[in-house]
């Protein structure tokens, strides 16, 4: 299968690889996918509580080149956006940017799911309504 140059670039030079402190109240963690399905993405955001701007984003991905590229691109796009702006990122934007072939669209869906999961986690932590915090 021929990959686009952008996929290859993200694969060869993945942006923002790493992990943020899960227990930090300003960090939201999303983990989506399953090893049996061949892809797992972990995406984390660190939000400035005053401005609600995402000041840092990190990822780690087990999956094919397109999955790695989709999550790498997602972290690039997240940085500097507000939480609400981040929710507007659509999987189709990732498909277009990386020129993903039809069989790889699920990788972009997974990346969108990871963004949503990280934001949900952050909101849950940041909203002091629920006092029970699960690890």
């Amino acid at each position, binding site marked *: 299968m021929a*990959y686009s140059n952008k996929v*290859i670039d993200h*694969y060869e030079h*993945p942006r923002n*690889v790493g*992990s943020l402190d899960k227990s930090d109240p300003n960090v939201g963690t999303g*983990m*989506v*996918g*399953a*090893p*049996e*399905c*061949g*892809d*797992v*993405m*972990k995406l984390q955001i660190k939000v400035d509580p005053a401005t609600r701007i995402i000041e840092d984003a990190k990822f*780690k*991905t*087990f*999956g*094919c*080149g397109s*999955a*790695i590229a989709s999550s790498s691109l997602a972290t690039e796009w997240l940085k500097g956006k507000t939480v609400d702006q981040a929710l507007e990122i659509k999987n189709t934007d990732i498909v277009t940017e990386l020129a993903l072939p039809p*069989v790889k669209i*699920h990788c972009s*869906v*997974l990346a969108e*799911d990871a963004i949503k*999961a990280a934001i949900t986690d952050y909101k849950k932590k940041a909203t002091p309504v629920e006092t029970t915090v699960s690890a």
Partner: protein
Amino acid sequence: MKLPIYLDNHATTPVDPRVLDAMLPYFKDNFGNAASRNHAFGWVAEEAVEKARKQIAELIGATSKEIIFTSGATESNNLAIKGVAQMYAERGNHIITAATEHKAVLDTCKHLEKEGVRVTYLPLKGDGLIDLDMLKESFTDKTILVSIMYANNEIGVIQPIREIGKLCKERGVLFHTDAVQAVGKVPVNVIQDNVDLLSLSGHKIYGPKGVGAIYVRRRSPRVQLTSQMDGGGHERGMRSGTLNVPGIAGLGEACAIAGKEMAEETARLTYLRDKLKAKLESSLEETYINGTMEHRLPGNLNISFAYVEGESLLMGINDVAVSSGSACTSATLEPSYVLKALGLGDDLAHTSIRFGIGRFNTEEEIDYTADKIISVVNKLRELSPLWEMFKEGIDLSKVQWTAH
């Protein structure tokens, strides 16, 4: 050393230059039809075909008359299984095969199931071998054929063909083996192995694509097949169609070379394979060999690198041609059914790589490949959330995943 390196010799092999030399005269100068009995052009072609028939027969312990030429192993498998099912329909309608057979066998069996044939698909033991007791229990008085491959194309595991053949013989059941990966690589003898039908192919043994053969036993018992194509009645009526003379000449030469050089080649490939295995295992933890090492083709290594997805690994070693059991590399988006049949979890199937070392690989290429794999696996593990969790001591089997 020239890049890219070809280490996918179970998929296909390059044509040996000596094989090509044997083929070339039959394209242009000696272009005759082997079925033309009344002129020199035909005689020369026929002579080439009969020479090849003898070379093939010698490699597998058969006689020339028992070799039928086909377009390849897919056709041979179709002809063997459908041909027996139709010819022996009055005797019974039950076939036994295994879950890890090639699709040319499995899909042929599925086709026959729609026509009322009953098929038993034997599961495999964790080491990739057939459970002979289970096979014994699967025979019924309606069983007419057992079809079990000689050596597997993904994990290289060699089945106990002789024992399987004996069980079939004792029960008067015909035994077919898809020996595409085994012929020319390990000693095959249809008499000692109790084989009645055997499929082989040119392009897996440094011969050309588009040519293969089927061995059909002529004595004790004399096996008959219903032909699957109507036409001029070539090949004792079992396979009509003008013979592919250059291809057949090449297949014959490929068999002759394989037979002559087998011992030496086996030693060399085993050395290279074991070196690759040792290098990978000593530098990388959490690697798993798929299938037994004890009964295995010399050039095969199938190994899972836990927590690293196969396709992403292939992408990182793009100057080395290997294949993966990962879903992402298959047309069906399903992980390897062979690895799954060994009871391997989907997660390990996704992380598997198949190396197929062949006649033209060098030690330098193996060293380069090992170093490259090690560096890419390490890089991808740094990227893998599963590796991170494993290192934190988290039991991944207990994690609640959000499957999609």
